[in-house]
């Protein structure tokens, strides 16, 4: 009844649009919020976790989330220019992580690994970026360019095919076993930043992700290439008429998306030091979720979506589910992540930053 009262207070033109569906949606929104808030209240008031532990959960979430964000950029940029979801992107990430593993493994036997960790890390990053970029560009050339102009579902299905192809090619090349990343002694242990104790590896991941994302944002907003990408994304035909080589621009978009995935792959190896040919699947799906969460097609949205999803996953089970004393709630972190996606979409159907895109397109 309270919803009805608040709605009544609105201007008549809005009130005229009230349908049973919108009432249901509002009831759902309020119920969801109430469940989350009450669960959080129960959980926090029980005093189970200390303030430092809550903060740690946030930091864990941000570090995983920034990797999701880097991968999500590839999904969102490709969606921006071509309007389809490149499902092979998770595999582009995995290939980068695989290459990072082999390079890191080779470096770990040299003195460079211990004497100058920064240089070794840069080598690993560059190798992963180069591999992922090449794979992304090759996939675009072989699987997507011949389908330019075909209905959008067709490249979508092709991307699923490309995803399996890459997975099993990698399986054939390196075998199905799980590979353990070499450790870097300098990255072990914790460090203190602004009075907060954080794992060193997570500092590296968060800083690297921030730098890459800031660089990408400036690139897209400030350079000629970035401008041509935005132009193609807005209207490929007019962009072509204005003298922009659309195919070249699309290749560049794939290359940049691939490079970001490569960085993500190398960083993933630092935080979760083991991977196999299947490791790209779940992060890929999570990154796709992040892209949708942030508003697909929107670059800043993908970054925000990734970090939010990471935080939801990390904090959500302990915050909401634990409050209701659900047994083994940590197992349900994926449920929490996808439920959060649904919730955000109920409140903002276009995603966190989706509105700008919607306005630009109509």
């Amino acid at each position: 009844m309270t919803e009805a009262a608040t709605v009544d207070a609105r201007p008549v033109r809005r009130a005229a649009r009230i349908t049973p569906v919108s009432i249901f949606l509002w009831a759902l929104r309020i119920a969801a919020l109430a469940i989350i808030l009450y669960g959080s209240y129960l959980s926090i008031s029980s005093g189970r976790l200390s303030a430092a532990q809550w903060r740690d959960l946030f930091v864990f979430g941000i570090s995983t989330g920034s990797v999701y964000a880097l991968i999500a950029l590839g999904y969102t940029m490709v969606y921006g220019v071509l309007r389809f979801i490149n499902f092979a992107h998770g595999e582009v990430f995995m290939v980068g992580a695989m290459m990072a593993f082999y390079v890191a493994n080779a470096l770990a036997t040299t003195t460079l690994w211990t004497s100058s960790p920064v240089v070794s890390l840069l080598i690993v990053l560059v190798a992963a970026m180069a591999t992922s970029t090449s794979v992304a560009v090759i996939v675009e050339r072989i699987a997507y360019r011949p389908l330019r102009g075909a209905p959008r579902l067709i490249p979508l299905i092709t991307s699923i095919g490309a995803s399996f192809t890459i997975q099993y090619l990698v399986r054939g090349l390196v075998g199905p076993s799980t590979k353990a990343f070499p450790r870097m002694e300098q990255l072990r242990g914790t460090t203190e930043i602004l009075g907060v104790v954080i794992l060193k590896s997570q500092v590296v991941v968060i800083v690297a992700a921030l730098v890459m994302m800031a660089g990408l944002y400036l690139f897209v907003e400030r350079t000629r290439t970035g401008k041509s990408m935005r132009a193609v994304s807005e209207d490929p035909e007019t962009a072509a008429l204005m003298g922009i080589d659309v195919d070249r621009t699309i290749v560049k978009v794939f290359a940049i998306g691939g490079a970001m995935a490569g960085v993500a792959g190398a960083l993933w190896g630092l935080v979760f030091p083991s991977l196999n040919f299947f490791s790209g699947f779940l992060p890929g799906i999570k990154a796709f979720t992040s892209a949708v969460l942030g508003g697909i097609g929107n670059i800043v949205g993908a970054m925000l979506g990734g970090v939010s999803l990471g935080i939801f996953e990390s904090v959500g089970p302990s915050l909401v589910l634990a409050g209701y004393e659900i047994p083994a709630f940590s197992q349900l972190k994926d449920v929490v992540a996808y439920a959060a996606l649904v919730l955000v979409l109920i409140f903002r159907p276009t995603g966190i930053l989706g509105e700008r895109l919607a306005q630009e397109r109509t």
Partner: protein
Amino acid sequence: MKMKRGLKLLALVGVLSLIIAACGGGEGGDTTTTAGGDEETTTSAAAEETTTSAAEGTTVPAGELGTVEVAAGEPIKIASAQTISGDTASLGTDQVRAIEIAIADKGEILGHPIELAFNEDEGCASEGGQTAATRITADPQVIAVIGTSCSGAGVPASNVITSAGRVLISGSNTSPVLTSDLAGNEGPEHHEGYFRTAHNDAIQGAAAATFVFEELGLTQVATINDGDPYTQGLTSAFEGAFTDLGGTIALSTAVTPDQTDMRPVLTEVAAAGAELIFFPIFQPAGDFVAEQALEVAGLEEVVLMGADGLLSDTYVVLPQTENMYFSGPQTPTGDAYDEFVAKYEAEYGEAPIQSFHAHAYDATNMVFTAIEEAATDDGSGNLSIDMQALRDSLHGMTYEGLTGSLSCDEFGDCAAPNIDILQNTAETADIAAVRGNILATYSAEQLGF
């Protein structure tokens, strides 16, 4: 208009991704697709075949499970369903090798050669077990299946294979749900025709709990399972025994097998004040728990303990597993076992890579003995093997194997196991060394079973 289509497409993509997510649960994903459609037809076909052959079996009175006819010179077919790829491959490969050695050792049964007709991969997952069992039961000549490696795969496999009238005998399923809790209560997934030579985790859980409480002197323990029947059965057996001893389960929680970020769950463990984490799960999730436990504030001093699923050559070499405790079946001793290991090394170029090769060897030999007892020869070399007699023979058998004296109870538990508690230290470089570093051994009687 354009927006609307975009949203529709997005919805479709969402649905598709969920479907892919559902299909891609593990490496077994690629094979599962064939299972769904074929399953019903093949099992019913197998059942039909059985009844026809039962009808044709004129010389012997056929039991209600039917008979398998093996013509003169034809091989006696058995099958293996083990995990032979992916992270748990060492568990299954170890047993497949043992089955091959057992077949080579036996040579022939009543003048018939023995053929390992199937070597299916159950992928340590429920879908894999279903697929493997369905493929195997499609061949009505297969008499017995040695498997599965994982209890999770054993649940559907036990159902499919025993429904087809065949026996399934496992060398490494340990979950109580597949047999009983050893206190006379039938497990929910027990089917007549299922046997195992591995221990029941009711015993392993009690052994691990007793060691932690009495030898390590710890009273606050957190357990982590991954939802698989093996891990759930073992953690709940541990919890029951540990509480009975007077200890406290500070936290009983779970992760998913493909989870990589264990830090949130480990933060919960730290908040619960656990002194020891008992996580009888598999790789790679087990790698992440051990690795990340070192990094979570409040867990600097925590003791880690795993079980037989992690007791593999690929796990104990990880640096983060140093000082970890493990429970596992006792490594057999004696000349017969040494001889077996010598054959294993000669054939495969390495020492046994997991803990259950001897159990699989015994399981295979028990099947051979049972076939010999259940088979009748018509005088010209044609064998008729009654499937009910085969089960009866396994139930009535006392078999002296590598792992000790085996006699099956009414729910299919054949072992009278001893459980070793082991520790991985800086000195133990490989799995053989870890299995030799025994801190304690508990027998079933000692634990009150």
